[in-house]
């Protein structure tokens, strides 16, 4: 049920909020006029290429760079030891909020030892990337191979080599949370289901790879970095601190960014190296990861094994869930966000839609000689949702209850908030029941069941899947990064200014990666101020221009940055009306702003335009009395107060056909009903959900970073690492329930990851529904044809 919230300016007829408007940046991109980091080419730019470890684990005995230095066009060859001299110290990827966590200090390039295949060892900087690669081939590195740790299951066993002897073992972090009494619930349950689930490694595969252009002016000692980033201020802090440049002397610009998906909230050693080269040489240095480097060095994610158990009564009421998670990190914990969020998030959200009160969840995160793991779209959620929703389906089947009905009996009631989840997290403003009934309606659930039965008679095996979900969005300062000690802001800000022309400049800390954050901020500002969209210019992605903020990650841009923009616009609006009141001899609260003009409330006749207020406010200030000390600008910062997250919820449905002879899965239909609170731009919200689903489906069906037993990544090309393509994707029907969050006036929650979080769960449930009559069951992702055939006993 939608909570009644008072009508605001945003709810006016014809408000820009709640309307589909196209993105300005899209017009530029489709015309081929996007300006990405690699499109920026200052004179005298040099290009970096890297010699990377060919081994999963090896001691570096010697490095000979003399031949490379002699090559044509080479300006600099730098080893890890030389780079370390320019740095303030190695990174340690721990946060104090993760009690007991440990990680080996990590240098930007390997010095004595390389711990994953692809770790940078030597940087070559030359006048072109091709020349840099030619010279890199002439660098001779003598290695002594060391034993690798590849299998997370045996990583903690006695006899398994320890990657970092200083740590004592390969354990990065362990944690258990427990509420209620799981063992008692299990003992008393009518039915207990246990299963084990495995998830392959993925990587983000952004269309634009990691990219960085560093420029250093030795005169002013200013460092300017253009980089494809979601979080310019975090990059500023980390790069400044690592390279010993004062933070206020570092400017980070994120120009057009071609997709990010969490990849671009991270910092990478090769990027530090290229920046160090720019400082050392006082020339622009560019580093653009190629696709091979992207696979072998971008963060990976999702490698987990989960044992899960659910206890239910024969009436189909869940009484407990418990899970044990073994999470495979890489060789180091990724600095500064760590490699343990995924496991932690699985603990937080598994079984999250349901009202049971007994829950135990534990994890061990272990180091492996693989690429470091960290946050990728919908961190942990695809895993937690798959485990929880598969257990729920299996329990429903064991009870002989339809899976939709089973969920109907167990989801948290819509009138039960605020409440604390079994994982101990506050839930508020959710709508599981309304989402479920909407899904039943949108899917035509009963008719679909009949259709499925008809197809079964013809020997065609179709499956229907359902997966309810929660999604943690817009994390607050109480939880992780800030409290954990990382230089990552959980607040976000907007500075908004009225220009003499009546135009408005809106500067925001949140950033756009192609999803339309800038358009959404413009809509909020224009709707609040009562001005045409064309009058607003949004500036983002430049630390010299925008107020300090965390940027875009964890579905926070609209929920956090949107509220900051709304409140800043409200402050500017109040000042405009105060000035108008003086000029018009009217009480400000009798006035309104409509289409760029101050009007009497309820009337549309212009009494004075914003352009006139801008002109007087900036040029003819003498027309205003002395006590009006206006600034025609306002800044607002917004953060959550006590909550860990703004949780959202929803439910997905899937309809698939499984070819039981070939193991091929055809996705027929997909539905997402989700509650992101107030929707600002329906089309952009829908497309976030659809794109997110496709990314989730990729992981469920195709994507996996495959390592062999020597720690060699086997499929570092787009021919071998399969990402979903349009032809195989189903239509995805999206509907939004809009339960405004009570933590902000805007009422928006996050939306960008909701598709990803439950898509793997729902498609796995649908596949298992299709093959259930044959006694088959799949619990491993990706669900390759071979996985299906094995489940069916055909190979």
């Amino acid at each position, binding site marked *: 049920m939608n909570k009644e919230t008072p009508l605001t300016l945003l709810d006016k007829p014809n408000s820009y909020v709640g309307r589909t408007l196209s993105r300005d940046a899209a017009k530029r991109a489709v015309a081929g006029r996007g300006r990405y980091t690699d499109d920026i080419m200052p004179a005298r730019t040099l290009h970096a290429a890297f010699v990377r470890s060919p081994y999963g684990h090896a001691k570096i005995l010697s490095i000979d760079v003399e031949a490379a230095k002699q090559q044509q066009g080479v300006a600099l060859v730098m080893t890890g030891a030389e780079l370390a001299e320019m740095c303030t110290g190695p990174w340690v990827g721990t946060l104090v909020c993760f009690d007991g966590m440990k990680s080996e200090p990590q240098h930007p390039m390997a010095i004595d030892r390389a711990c994953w295949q692809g770790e940078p060892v030597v940087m070559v900087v030359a006048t072109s990337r091709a020349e840099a690669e030619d010279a890199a081939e002439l660098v001779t590195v003598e290695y002594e191979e060391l034993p690798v740790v590849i299998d997370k299951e045996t990583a903690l066993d006695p006899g398994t080599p320890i990657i970092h002897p200083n740590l004592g073992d390969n354990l990065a972090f362990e944690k258990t949370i427990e509420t209620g009494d799981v063992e008692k619930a299990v003992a008393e349950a009518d039915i207990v289901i246990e299963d084990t689930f495995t998830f392959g490694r993925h990587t983000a595969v952004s269309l634009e790879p990691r990219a960085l252009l560093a420029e250093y002016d030795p005169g002013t000692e200013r460092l300017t970095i253009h980089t494809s980033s979601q979080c310019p201020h975090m990059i500023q802090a980390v790069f400044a601190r690592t390279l010993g440049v004062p933070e206020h002397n570092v400017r980070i610009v994120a120009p057009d960014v071609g997709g990010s998906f969490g990849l671009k909230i991270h910092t990478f050693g090769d990027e530090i190296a290229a920046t160090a080269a720019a400082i050392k040489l006082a020339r622009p240095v560019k580093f653009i990861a190629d696709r091979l480097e992207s696979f072998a060095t971008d963060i990976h994610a999702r490698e987990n094994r989960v044992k899960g158990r659910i206890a239910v009564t024969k009436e189909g009421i869940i009484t407990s869930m418990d899970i044990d998670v073994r999470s495979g990190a890489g060789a180091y914990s990724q600095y500064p966000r760590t490699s343990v969020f995924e496991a932690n998030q699985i603990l937080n959200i598994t079984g999250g839609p349901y009202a049971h009160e007994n829950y135990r969840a534990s994890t061990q995160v272990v180091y492996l000689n693989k690429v470091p793991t960290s946050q990728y779209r919908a961190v942990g959620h695809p895993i937690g949702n798959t485990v929880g929703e598969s257990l729920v389906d299996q329990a429903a089947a064991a009870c002989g209850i339809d899976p939709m009905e089973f969920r109907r009996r167990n989801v948290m009631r819509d009138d039960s908030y605020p409440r604390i989840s079994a994982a101990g997290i506050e839930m508020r403003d959710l709508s599981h029941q309304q989402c479920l009934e909407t899904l039943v309606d949108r899917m035509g659930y009963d008719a679909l069941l009949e259709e499925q039965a008809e197809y079964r008679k013809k020997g065609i095996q179709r499956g229907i899947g359902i997966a309810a979900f929660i999604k943690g969005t817009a994390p607050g300062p109480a939880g992780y990064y800030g409290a954990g000690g990382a230089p990552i802001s959980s607040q976000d800000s907007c500075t908004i200014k009225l220009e003499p022309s009546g135009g408005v400049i809106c500067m925001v800390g949140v950033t756009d990666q192609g999803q339309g954050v800038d358009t959404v901020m413009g809509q909020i500002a224009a709707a609040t101020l009562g001005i045409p969209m064309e009058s607003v210019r949004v500036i983002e992605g430049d630390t010299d221009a925008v107020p300090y903020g965390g940027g875009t990650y964890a579905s926070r841009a609209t929920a956090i940055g949107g509220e900051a923009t709304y409140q800043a616009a409200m402050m500017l609006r109040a000042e405009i009306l105060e000035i108008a009141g003086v000029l018009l001899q009217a009480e400000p609260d009798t006035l309104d702003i409509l289409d760029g003009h101050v009007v009497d409330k309820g009337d549309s006749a212009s009494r004075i335009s914003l352009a006139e207020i801008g002109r007087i406010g900036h040029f003819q200030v003498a027309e205003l009395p002395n006590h009006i000390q206006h600034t025609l600008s306002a800044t607002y910062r917004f953060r959550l107060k006590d909550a860990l997250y703004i949780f959202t919820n929803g439910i997905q449905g899937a309809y698939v056909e499984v070819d039981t002879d070939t193991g091929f899965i055809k996705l027929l239909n997909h539905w997402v009903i989700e509650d992101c609170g107030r929707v600002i731009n329906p089309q952009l919200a829908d497309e976030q959900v659809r794109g997110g689903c496709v990314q989730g489906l990729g992981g469920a069906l*195709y994507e996996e970073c495959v390592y062999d037993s020597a720690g060699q990544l086997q499929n570092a090309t787009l*021919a071998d690492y399969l990402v979903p393509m349009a032809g195989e994707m189903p239509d995805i029907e999206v509907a939004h329930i809009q339960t405004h969050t009570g933590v902000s006036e805007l009422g928006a929650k996050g939306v960008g990851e909701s598709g990803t979080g439950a898509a793997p769960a729902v498609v796995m449930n649908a596949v298992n529904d299709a093959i259930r009559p044959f006694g088959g069951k799949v619990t491993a992702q990706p669900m390759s044809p071979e996985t299906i055939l094995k489940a069916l006993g055909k190979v």
Partner: protein
Amino acid sequence: MKAPKFNYIRAESRQQALELLDQLGEDGRILAGGQSLMPTLNMRLSQPGTLIDINKVTDLSGITLEDGIVRIGAMTRHVEVANSPIIAENLPLIAEAMQHVAHHAVRNRGTIGGSIALADPAAEMPACVLALGATLVVESINGRREIAAEDYFKGLYETARAANELLVEILIPAEKSDNVSVFLELAQRHGDFAMAGLACVARVSNKTFEELRLVYFGSEDRPTLGAGAIAAVVGQTWSAECKEAAANALADDLDPMTNLQGSAAMKLHLQKVLTGRALDAAIERAEAV
């Protein structure tokens, strides 16, 4: 991912290309459509000294029909083959297979000769020419040589073409009007390299296979004739038992390679499934004629 340095020569004529090939030997590499070669160069997996570009050699492309033989120039692009009325009418197997050859962008540049010269084990055209009993014509400065498709594919990326020879054309007998053909392929995403695939050409009368060629690709190191499966089916009236016999015989015909797409056992299973489906389809198509 930048190619190492190489020399580039654009051949203005067939003769010049042949002379360059002869002079350069293994150090020279023919650049046709470039759809396989360019990625391997950029990934530094291959480092030829000189690329001999034959894109301007106009007499290497085109499709003609003479005396029941379809002649396809080696530089003919996939898209031209896909759009050719001669192919559609006379070589329906190739027309059907073309739908599976990568994506539009690749078909616009990639060539049929390039595909056959490279002999990727998962490629469609090598399987088709073997199924159709084609003759591959290679040429060097010493003259022309015709190689039957059966003798051409020697192993993984290995063919009977000598280093100084250029594949210049493909001669394929038009499919007989009472023949049927079926092309099936399994790839997780449309346009990807096949996990398993089958080119089938048959003459069917009264649900009996009188003539049959089954060529498997994607699972073996080269396109492979399923001799045992063929023997199990030819002369038999199509039935469930016959289908099973063909599948059983296939285990001796094939020796699938395990790779990232799946195990040898899975690939053999898939080829068995495809065999049954292709023969079912052949019967259906024969009855529809």
